[in-house]
């Protein structure tokens, strides 16, 4: 007996496996230390850039907030971003100074902030001649989220690039574009400049989420 999605449909295409929530214990699988499990030799975590990575080393951090204004304390986030030159490093390698991919989580205790240490990504030219402003692609998984949410983090000190970015421009409401712009502040961990962005799942100030 086969799963039904292995039967070709009329248009000769299989159906995608359906999504289910990552649940409250996602950390066991994807963030072992947060669950209280011993870590394996190599884990995927939140330091995308070591101190010898090329570019401006920064911290990005924020909270995840639900429709009641409460902190979402069991979210897992994934980052995917270009390096300082605007190139994606697809070969994940913990020995490399920079990786384009990382994971972080909000936590049950304290102020429940997620956090990445990375470098500010470069701008990216599209073949149509338009340029995407520096950004970090973020994916959000959590209990109560049936299919992961996809968004982008932009930087408030890139006003000119942001104004010309075709993806920000695709958001019809100018006010809603602001939900993707992280604010720079001084005094991150280890003296790194910190960009802060809260992700609001629902209601006032709801973050823009993308379909792609």
């Amino acid at each position, binding site marked *: 007996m086969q799963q039904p999605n292995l039967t070709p449909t009329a248009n000769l295409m299989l159906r995608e496996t359906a999504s289910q929530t990552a649940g409250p214990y*996602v950390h066991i699988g994807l963030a072992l230390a947060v669950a209280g499990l011993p870590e394996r030799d190599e884990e995927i975590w939140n330091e995308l850039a070591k101190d010898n990575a090329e570019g401006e080393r920064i911290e990005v951090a924020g909270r995840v907030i639900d429709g009641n204004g409460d902190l979402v304390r069991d979210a897992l986030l994934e980052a995917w971003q270009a390096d300082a030159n605007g190139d994606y490093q697809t070969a994940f390698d913990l020995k490399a100074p920079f990786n384009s991919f990382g994971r972080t989580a909000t936590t049950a205790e304290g102020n429940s902030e997620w956090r990445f240490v990375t470098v500010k990504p470069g701008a990216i030219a599209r073949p149509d001649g338009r340029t995407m402003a520096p950004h970090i692609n973020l994916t959000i998984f959590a209990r109560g989220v049936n299919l992961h949410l996809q968004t982008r983090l932009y930087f408030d000190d890139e006003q000119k690039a942001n104004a010309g970015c075709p993806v920000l421009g695709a958001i019809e409401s100018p006010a809603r574009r602001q939900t993707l712009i992280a604010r720079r502040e001084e005094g991150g961990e280890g003296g790194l400049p910190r960009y802060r962005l809260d992700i609001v799942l629902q209601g006032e100030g709801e973050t823009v989420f993308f379909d792609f």
Partner: protein
Amino acid sequence: MSLNRNLNRRFVERDRQWHPAAYTPGYKTSVPRSPSQALVSLQTPSVSELTGPEFRRLRMGPHDNDLLLNFRDADSPGLPVGERVIMFGRVVDQFGKPVPQTLVEMWQANAGGRYRHKKDSYLAPLDPNFGGVGRCLTDDDGWYHFRTIKPGPYPWPNGINTWRPAHIHVSVMGPAISTRLITQMYFEGDPLIPICPIVQTLKDEEAVGTMIGRLDMARSRPMDALAYRFDLVVRGELQTYFENQ
């Protein structure tokens, strides 16, 4: 600033009627966590969505895919309690093309339905020889294998008497962040499946069927372990042969 690469690639559009909706009030936690605004569709996919990490250089431990052996009581090491099972399958895309060398991760409760997580306080005890996490890369033909025990069902606060069917959480990356997917594998024939509010977030019975691991006697090991086959289908990859003008 660099020029875009990989742009002759695109993916079949994700069918959001097939997947569960964000707002599914039968699963109560989704109520305050579901966006109320429409998603913004990116009409022109860029390198940001069309690429993703590959993990050939992620160093795996020898037992990362063997949950019978990868967590052992330091004082009196032994095997975990529960039904021994082999969970295996193939990662393919919607056109049936295998997805080689992609990262598959899984996590689960123990045989009593208890997770080794500091936030789980269910009555059932922890198993000193069971952690509940596995990972591996698919081989060149897209196959993956785990050895584990069958997790137990457990109660959770949603309705007054709501139970999760036995399930294993499964995470797959696929060729790009566009194909990223997290799901759960259920066990064929479990009577808790049709009454689970999380399963019921799906409207289509056929979609539920994509999440059912099937008993495979041929690949079961006599006097050792039953096998359950769970194939994962990620979005189909297409090449774009013509310029968009």
